[in-house]
């Protein structure tokens, strides 16, 4: 057998394997991607909420993308409390101004950053929220102060369409 022959043979087999592998990859992708959010789910990206009836000191909970969103109209005391916290006391330092565009309105995902439970309103050691699952305490700005949760409650993308309507998403 000459030296060249096995090389050519090897090339043919390698090429077949390589092309075959590309095909398998191309087939696997649709099977994986079908589990991603579908077009109708993606289309429901935003929701509008009328907040005209919310009184100071009250929270409403609305559903957005299948998760609860807390919309709280904060009292002046709560705002003061949130603003007066020193950054070095925070586990996840964020200024209140960065979390609430209009200090009166706090909009955030009502999902504990520990393992996804919904925290309870007006509970806990910091006058904000308390997660009953594993005991995380959040302050009046929704920031984590005590307990196992690593991060502050997430603020989603939102905007005021007018004075009474908030568009989430």
């Amino acid at each position: 057998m000459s030296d060249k022959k096995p090389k050519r043979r090897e090339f043919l087999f390698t090429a077949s394997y390589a092309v075959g592998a590309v095909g398998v990859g191309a087939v696997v992708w649709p099977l994986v991607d079908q589990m991603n959010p579908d077009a109708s789910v993606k289309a429901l990206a935003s929701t509008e909420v009328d907040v005209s009836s919310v009184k100071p000191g009250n929270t409403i909970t609305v559903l957005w993308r299948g998760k609860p969103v807390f919309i709280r109209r904060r009292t002046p005391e709560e705002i003061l409390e949130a603003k007066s916290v020193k950054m070095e006391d925070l586990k996840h330092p964020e200024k209140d101004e960065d979390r609430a565009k209009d200090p009166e309105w706090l909009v955030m995902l009502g999902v504990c950053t520990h393992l996804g439970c919904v925290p309870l309103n007006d509970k806990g050691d910091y006058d904000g929220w308390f997660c009953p699952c594993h005991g995380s305490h959040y302050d009046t700005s929704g920031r984590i102060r005590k307990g196992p949760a690593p991060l502050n409650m997430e603020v989603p993308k939102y905007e005021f369409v007018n004075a009474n309507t908030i568009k989430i998403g």
Partner: protein
Amino acid sequence: MKVLINKVKNLIKLLSILALITFVTTHSNSAESAKLLKTDWSFKGLFGKFDRGALQRGYQVYTEVCASCHSMKYVSYRNLGEKGGPEFTEAEVKAIAASFEVTDGPNADGEMFVRPAKLSDKFVMPYENVKAAQAANGGAYPPDMSVLVKARGGGVDYIYSLLQGYEDAPSGMTLDEGVHYNKYMYGNKIMMSAPLSDDILEYGDGTKATVEQMSKDVTTFLMWAAEPHLESRHQMGFKAIIYLIILTILVYFSMKKIWSRVKSEV
């Protein structure tokens, strides 16, 4: 050589059986009374694509004519702007959606309320339910148009023909009140009166609105509504088949190499 001929013979046998099966199935699926009108559909064939203009005009025909009776409950307004469809601009689709009203709710007071449609909404239905549609149309339910093209033997050709198939009933045939003669309809009797007539609407792009033109446009639109992914299907199909042919050739020569080790014909 003889082996090769035998192989080709076998392949031909196999393919003819396949063709027969396909023929029998399709033949049995489309037992029509009259020979259907034909036209050149841009979306047929290996690289078939929709004619964007026809889709946009077809949408106009659908909303201005068909939609007063026929629902299209599986299509959403957002689809109108998606790739492979009529491809209206986002602003156009938003304006289209906003021109319809949907009932939503209940709101915080437990009341249902009416708001302009959003992109994510399905096409608004002309009737609340099937019964209401029947009551308003002399007992006949105007079928939902989402998959209508696929739900009729003859498909696009049938719809295209039906829209142009209104004639005076032949002598000797008596039609009940509210029943019309159509030479392509199964049994030739149809409850729908001729929906199209020349210049019943004015096309935005200046195309002359003849019955034939409108039939073609709206049928194209219905085809898209039934198969919104037709274009990507054709594109992917072409790639897939080219790929398979390349791999088949590679594997064929690999097989020849491997079998050359034993004294035998593959």
